[in-house]
């Protein structure tokens, strides 16, 4: 049963009534003054910078891929407000259980672009996010990550730690059994998990209306007795407010929450995908008007706090990102033994044997040359 001590926004934006929380409109005008989060200008500027960094890193990743320097990549463009707002509310000790399209959040947790690049260059070292504290690797099998987050939530609660868990999924992912099961376990166990649906309107080519007949995605929370809220995912200030509220809520031990962040995947599904097959330019243009960077920039301009030399920043970021890419690209070290060595803590004899046989083959091959 949902508690009565729900934060006001969860009551005011009841997904059953299909309301959506918004703070600024596409022009950057504040449409809901009372909800305006009390953020120092510095913080807003920093947020914009982080979004810009993600945007650039993403663009560059796409172009490295186009140049044939990297394998298939999954663009993030258009979804930065969600990632950065989440990142700003996630503390060092909190856990992130990613899906695969929240680069900005990973960066905030200490994952480097070099690692991301290394991952998309086909090296597991990159995907392990080794030095990022309490970040799980990407879970490609969609939906499964909800259970992992809930399980971590149980650990945290069991050990009475002050840690929250953040996990993500796409709109398409809400159809998987694990999505529902995961929320259901979280509801029963009342674990400190913030579940985010990034509703970017498509699962590859399939529009969200073909995924479900529900009035929105946030309302799915009702089935599991969890508070849910639908929010404009391209409105950084709205996302910030919601993450702040949700974080406080789950940290205070009141149980999990579900956020539907309404956004748009401005790029292709992956670099192997061609969206023109399944959606029209008009639609892309319309959604383009809601772009989170443009909106936050306009807000800052309206407010008179836009003092960013964007061109210089772009230049600077580009150099830095490229340096990281080149670093990753130059990392050609993948000793063959690595294939075997991470499978088990206690490596089975059988694997040792296979490794030895392979070494024999390699030395035969060497000799043959």
């Amino acid at each position, binding site marked *: 049963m949902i508690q009565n001590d729900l934060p006001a926004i969860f009551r005011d934006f009841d997904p059953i009534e299909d309301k959506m929380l918004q703070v600024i409109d596409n022009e950057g005008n504040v449409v809901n003054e009372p909800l305006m989060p009390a953020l120092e200008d510095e913080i807003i500027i920093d947020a914009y910078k982080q979004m810009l960094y993600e945007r650039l890193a993403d663009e560059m990743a796409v172009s490295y891929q186009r140049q044939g320097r990297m394998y298939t990549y999954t663009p993030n463009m258009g979804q930065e407000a969600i990632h950065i707002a989440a990142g700003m509310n996630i503390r060092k000790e909190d856990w992130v259980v990613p899906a695969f399209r929240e680069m900005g959040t990973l960066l905030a947790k200490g994952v480097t672009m070099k690692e991301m690049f290394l991952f998309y260059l086909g090296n597991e070292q990159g995907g392990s996010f080794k030095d990022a504290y309490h970040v799980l690797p990407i879970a490609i099998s969609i939906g499964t990550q909800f259970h992992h987050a809930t399980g971590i939530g149980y650990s945290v609660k069991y050990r009475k730690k002050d840690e929250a868990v953040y996990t993500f999924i796409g709109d398409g992912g809400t159809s998987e*059994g694990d999505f529902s099961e995961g929320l259901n376990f979280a509801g029963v166990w009342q674990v400190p998990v913030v579940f985010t649906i990034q509703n970017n309107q498509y699962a590859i080519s399939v529009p969200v209306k073909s995924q479900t007949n529900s009035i929105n995605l946030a309302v799915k929370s009702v089935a599991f007795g969890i508070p849910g809220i639908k929010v404009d995912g391209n409105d950084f200030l709205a996302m910030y407010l919601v993450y702040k509220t949700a974080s406080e809520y789950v940290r205070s031990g009141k149980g999990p929450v579900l956020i539907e962040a309404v956004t748009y995947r401005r790029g292709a599904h992956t670099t192997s995908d061609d969206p023109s097959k399944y959606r029209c330019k008009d639609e892309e243009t319309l959604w383009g008007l809601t772009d989170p960077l443009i909106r936050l920039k306009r807000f800052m301009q309206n407010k008179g706090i836009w003092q960013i030399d964007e061109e210089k920043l772009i230049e600077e970021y580009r150099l830095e990102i490229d340096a990281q890419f080149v670093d990753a690209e130059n990392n050609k070290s993948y000793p063959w033994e690595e294939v075997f060595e991470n499978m088990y803590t206690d490596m089975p004899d059988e694997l040792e044997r296979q490794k030895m046989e392979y070494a024999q083959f390699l030395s035969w091959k060497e000799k043959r040359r």
Partner: protein
Amino acid sequence: MSVMTMVKAINNALDIKLEEDKDIVVYGEDVGVEGGVFRVTEGLQQKYGVERVFDSPLAESGIVGTALGMAVSGLRPIVELQFEGFTFPAFNQILSNVSRMQNRSRKKYGVPMVIRFPYGGGVNALEHHSDSPEALFAHIPGLKVVIPSTPHDAKGLMISAIESNDPIIFMEPKRIYRAIKQEVSEEKFTLPLGKARVVQEGTDITIVAFGAMIRECQRAIAMAQETGISVELIDLRSIYPIDRETVGNSVRKTGRMLIVAEAHQSFSVGSELIAIANEEAFLYLEAPPRRVAGFDTIVPLAQGEKYYIISPERIFYEIEKSIKF
């Protein structure tokens, strides 16, 4: 006749059957407008409408489970699972219901359905996109498991699979989806399920393989030929039932056997084939039948995959070892 890739050949098979039989429906993730992430169903929705060729919600258990419902009520569903790595959310429906419904209902209900998906490595893919789980399906009684190695076979086997009244797991080697082009008849034709094909006759050693490994074996065989070794190559085409007769005949003739398959070595199709060789040709064996197989490890990402993937050279190495035994 026209030149086809495997993608085109399967598309053509689906097209022919959709045209012929109104009970056939085709669905899965992105198979509609998009025509599938590999374009295997391209153009079919336009031609046959959204009621017969359509996108499903993103849920594999649902795709397979609803297909079973359709199959028992008179339709003949063909469903696509996007990658082999995403068949597992559907594993329970496959194992607990699809494979069991005929037996459970004492054949009151037939289960004419095809579950098709790309599988296998060699395409520089992310995790879950390079696996070869055929042994997992082959161990489930009530299923038939089919794997083509050429565009021609893909078409003939797919049409047979669709016409079969038993549930079929149809695994498509994605590595050769477009890499092999072949003249294939535009007409309808079928190939028998459960029968292997002797790709090339030989006398010194038998190689059994399937899917994308056939091509690698042919390359290795060319190397072997240079050293005067005559290899017989068998393309299984069907993993279950496995063609014990063809394999047995060949091994009785050559006395030696290698099995080349990408999957993890332990508990693999190779293990079964060694058991069969022992049962069928024990007294003829001149060297221990051996597996050239993937390791018991996760298939590495692109940078490490070269170690895992079976090269013609590695096959040749094993041929030589067996001959010298």
